[in-house]
C-alpha cells in the first residue's frame, strides 16, 4: 500500500478519535485526583475551578466526561468487536460453505435484520440487568447482521475465485480455507465495518444508558445525560451537565463514521486497481 495518502474523511475522523483518546489518557492522569465533591451546592455553573461546572453531587462535569470517555469508548470498541467477530465468522462460513448452511445462516441473518434491534436491546438489557458486559453482549449479539451480509458477499466472491479452487485441488479442508484464506481477504472490509460499527455501538450505548439501562457505577456519557435528565438539570437550566456529553458523543461517533467511511471507500476500490494501471 505504498503511498496512499489518508483521505480528508480519514484525517478528520482520526483527528476526532485521537481527541477522544487524549481524553481517555487524561482521565487516568487527572480523573482520580479531582473526582470528589468540590462545590458546596449541586449544579454550580462553570467557573474557574470547575471549567464545565458541577453536577447534582457537586462533581466536576469535565472530570466526569473524561472518565465517561473510557466507558463509552471501551463499550463501543468491545461491543463492535464482538459484533464484527460474530458477523465475520457467520458471513464467511455462510458465504464460503454455501448450501444448506448458507440457507440457515442467511435466514438467521435476515431474521436479525428484520428484528427491530433497538427495542429488543432495551428489553434484553433490562432483562439481563444492565452492566458493562451485558451492554457489550447485547450490542454484540444484535448488531452483527450487516457485517455478516457484507462478509458473506465477499466470501461468495472469493469462493469462486481461482485460488480457492486451487486450494481444494491440494486437498485443503474447508475450515482451513475459511480461516487462513477467506478471512484474511475480507479483513479490509471487516476493518472498515468494524470502525463504522464502533460509532453505532457508542450511539447505542449512549441510548441505552440515557434511558437508564447502563451500569450507573461506571458512568458513560449516556449515563451523565441520564442523570442530568432524571435529576432536574434540564429544569434548572444546568446546560453544562447535558450539552458537553452530548457533544462528546456526537463528535466521537462522527469521528468513527468518517474514518470508517474513508476505509470503506479505500477497500471498495481495492488496492489492486489503485496500482494496477500504468
Amino acid at each position: 500500500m505504498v503511498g496512499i495518502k489518508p483521505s480528508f474523511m480519514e484525517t478528520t475522523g482520526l483527528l476526532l478519535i485521537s481527541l477522544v483518546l487524549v481524553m481517555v489518557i487524561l482521565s487516568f492522569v487527572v480523573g482520580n485526583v479531582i473526582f470528589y465533591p468540590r462545590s458546596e451546592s449541586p449544579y454550580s455553573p462553570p467557573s474557574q475551578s470547575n471549567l464545565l461546572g458541577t453536577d447534582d453531587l457537586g462533581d466536576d462535569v469535565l472530570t466526569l466526561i473524561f472518565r465517561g470517555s473510557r466507558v463509552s469508548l471501551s463499550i463501543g470498541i468491545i461491543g463492535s468487536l464482538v459484533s464484527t467477530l460474530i458477523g465475520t465468522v457467520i458471513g464467511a462460513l455462510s458465504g464460503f460453505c454455501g448450501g444448506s448452511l448458507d440457507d440457515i445462516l442467511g435466514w438467521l441473518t435476515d431474521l436479525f435484520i428484520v428484528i427491530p434491534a433497538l427495542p429488543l436491546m432495551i428489553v434484553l438489557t433490562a432483562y439481563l440487568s444492565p452492566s458493562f458486559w451485558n451492554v457489550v453482549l447485547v450490542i454484540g449479539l444484535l448488531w452483527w447482521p450487516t457485517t455478516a451480509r457484507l462478509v458473506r458477499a465477499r466470501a461468495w466472491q472469493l469462493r469462486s475465485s481461482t485460488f480457492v479452487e486451487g486450494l481444494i485441488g491440494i486437498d485443503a479442508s474447508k475450515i482451513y480455507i475459511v480461516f487462513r484464506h477467506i478471512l484474511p481477504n475480507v479483513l479490509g472490509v471487516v476493518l472498515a465495518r468494524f470502525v463504522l460499527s464502533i460509532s453505532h455501538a457508542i450511539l447505542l450505548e449512549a441510548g441505552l444508558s440515557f434511558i437508564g439501562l447502563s451500569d450507573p457505577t461506571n458512568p458513560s456519557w449516556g449515563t451523565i445525560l441520564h442523570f442530568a435528565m432524571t435529576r432536574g438539570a434540564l429544569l434548572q437550566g444546568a446546560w453544562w451537565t447535558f450539552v458537553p456529553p452530548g457533544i462528546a458523543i456526537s463528535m466521537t461517533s462522527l469521528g468513527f463514521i468518517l474514518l470508517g467511511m474513508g476505509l470503506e471507500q479505500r477497500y471498495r476500490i481495492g488496492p489492486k486497481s489503485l496500482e494496477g494501471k500504468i
Partner: protein
Amino acid sequence: MRLIQDLSGIRTPNNLESNVILSAEHVSKWYISFKRRKTVALENVNFSIFKGEKVCIIGESGSGKSTLAKILCGLITPNSGEVRFEGKKLSELNKSEKKVFRMRVQYIPQCPDLALDPTWYLYDSLAEPLRIQKICSKQDEFERVKEVCERVGIGMDQLRRKPRNVSGGELQRVVIARAFILSPEIIIADEPTSMLDPSIQAKIVRTILDLQSESNIGIVFLTHDLELAKLVSEKMFVMLGGRIVESGYTRDILKTPLHPYTKSLLMGVPPKTEFKQNSPCGFYGECEIVSEVCCQYPPPESEVYGGRKVRCWRYA
C-alpha cells in the same frame, strides 16, 4: 527445434490400458439454471491420458474444456459418468487415496491474478501444498521451495513479495512452481498463457515443457491456439459444444483434419452469425456440408483409423 523432433516419436509401449493414469468415462455435466433450464456443459465425454503423455485439448471458450479440466482434477463432480484415477473411481476413493490423488494431479489455472491468495506472501503460498499435505519438515520445505524455484526460474527474493507486487509472468511461474512442488504425475494446465503477453507466453510454455521432460509427467494442455498445440502435444482432443468432436495424434489432425469444425479452425474461417441454437450437432449452424440427419440426431463417435476418432455423421 528439439521439441518438434521429440513429438514425432510415438512411444507405443505406453499405449496400454494399464498405463492410463487418468481417464474420464462417459462424463456429462449440466447446470440447472434459474428458470429450470438445463445448460449442458459436457456431454458423454471420454478421455484418457497415459503416463508421461502430452495431451492437448483444443476448444473455444464455452466449448466445455475448462469444465472437463476441473472434472479431471476433481474440482467439480460430474452429473453422470466416472473419472478414474489409476483405475479407481474418483467418487469411491477413501480419504488417504483422495489425498494421494490430490497430490498426483495438479491444476494450473488460466488467470494467475487470482490464482494465489492476494494477502499471502508468495513463499507461503508456494510452500502451502507441502504444509497441507504434511510431507516434509520446515527445513526440507525450504529446500524443496528453493529447488522448484530454480527449476521454474524465479529468484528466492521474489518470494518475499505479495502477488500484487509481481508481474503476471512471474506470478504464473509461481503458480506453475506450486503445481510442481508436490511432484505430480499429471499437470492440467488450463490456458496458462492466454492472459499473458506473447513474449512471456514463450517463457511459460518453455518452463512447463522443460519440467515435463525432466520428470516425465503427463500434461494436459488446454488452449485455443493451434500453433501452440502443435508445439506442445502428442495427442489432441478437439472440443465443441461440450463434446469431443475429434481426437487423435496432433500431427495427423493438423495434417488431415476430418471434422468440419477442425477444418474451419485450421483454415481460419471466421464464425458465422446465427442465433444460439440447440442443435444435436454443435457445428450445425456453420457446417458447409449438412445432411438432414445432422439436425435430428447427435452424431455418434466413430473411429476412422488407429486412434483417430471423429464425431460427425459423415464418418458414421
